[in-house]
């Protein structure tokens, strides 16, 4: 993808909806298109969180190692963001991510992305707000998974 194509792809992604072309262009400078075949481990739990991903198409499973086996705790799909371990020290992944189907994503280099956000405070704040929304929504979903959400209907 050329930088202009990256800007267009970012603009179509739900997470970046509404950002100006100027801001998209800054973010595109840290991004590259990447594809994974089904079954590929994208990153491993405990590994260095050196990237952020915007899913364009396909599905990704977030996995947690429990008692020697991998448990899928959530799946992410097109239009969603994958990973926020790159945002804060110690920059480690809390989960593993595996491509469930062929996945096409935009990969942001973490160091470059943090530099863009540090240097452009308004954009950095906007992206942080959006990530906060993602985190809140996933925390709420996780809480519901912990209660007996499907327990007593008949």
């Amino acid at each position, binding site marked *: 993808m050329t930088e202009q194509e990256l800007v267009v792809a970012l603009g179509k992604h739900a997470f970046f909806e509404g950002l100006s072309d100027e801001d998209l262009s800054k973010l595109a400078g840290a991004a590259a298109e990447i594809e994974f075949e089904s079954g590929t481990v994208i990153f491993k739990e405990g590994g260095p969180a050196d990237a952020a991903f915007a899913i364009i198409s396909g*599905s990704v*499973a*977030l*996995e947690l190692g429990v008692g020697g*086996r*991998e*448990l*899928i*705790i*959530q*799946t992410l*799909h097109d*239009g969603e963001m994958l990973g926020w371990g790159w945002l804060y020290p110690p920059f480690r992944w809390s989960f593993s991510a*595996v491509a*469930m189907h062929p996945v096409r994503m935009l990969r942001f280099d973490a160091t470059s992305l943090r530099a863009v956000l540090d240097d452009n405070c308004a954009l950095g704040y906007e992206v942080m707000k959006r990530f906060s929304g993602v985190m809140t929504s996933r925390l709420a*979903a996780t809480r*519901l*998974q912990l*209660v*007996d*959400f*499907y*327990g*007593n*209907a*008949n």
Partner: protein
Amino acid sequence: METLTEPAVIDQMTPVPFRVRSVREELSHTFTLELEPPNGSFEFLPGQFTMVYAFGIGEVPISISSSTAKPSTILQTIRRTGAVTHALGRLKSGDYVGIRGPYGTPWPMEAIKGRDLLIIGGGIGLAPLRPAIYHAMENRDDYERVVVLYGTRTPDDILFHNELQEWAERTDITTLITVDAADRSWNGAVGVVTRLIGRVGFDPMNTTALVCGPEIMMTVTAERLVEGSSLAPENIYVTMERNMKCAIGLCGHCQFGEKFICTDGAVFPYPEVGGLFDIKGV
């Protein structure tokens, strides 16, 4: 005013014997009774329930889970939770149960013709929705887009699994399934059912949602539909369950706020009951 001794009331309180054709185990604690009406036919509407009597044990309200287009075969999907449902689960082909009904308000299938249908079930809540899904498929031209979203705990807890897979392969409806947790043998979505809503875009002005599951699931789903997708609350319908006794609005056993679930429901427009979900003791 009717009294309990009037013939009409006595008729409504008298179970009719239905022969058990088969008992099918669906999940570890859930089974489906296939019943044969005594006169060969039993008319009902999608979303209605019957009182099912295990002779000598007791009665329980159970939603009908079969197609209204097949009135000669009545399916009732039941989870083993107490003495009556355990007794029903021990029945064999050729045994009899007592049936009263059908009772309750149906899903508004006539009123919502021409609209998109968003049908959202959680756990065994798919059973009361299945007649509505059958109705939409059997009268496909009466509705625009038909979307079925289903969530449950694990892949082993998926009710009507084979049928859901068949629906997922159809091109005239959209069916998505999600579970709370799974291992790598599961190739589908993991997460609560509300996360599926964002994956199926719909027109809030022309969509009606039918929702069934535990009250927390219906509450969270309705909030997501209203706040996240701008669906008007009056275009959301839910079905309620309460412990019922008479099922004809006399005993008050199933009172829910100012409503009787048995006669005012069990299917309600969400605004009529949504505010009561979080009130303790209602």
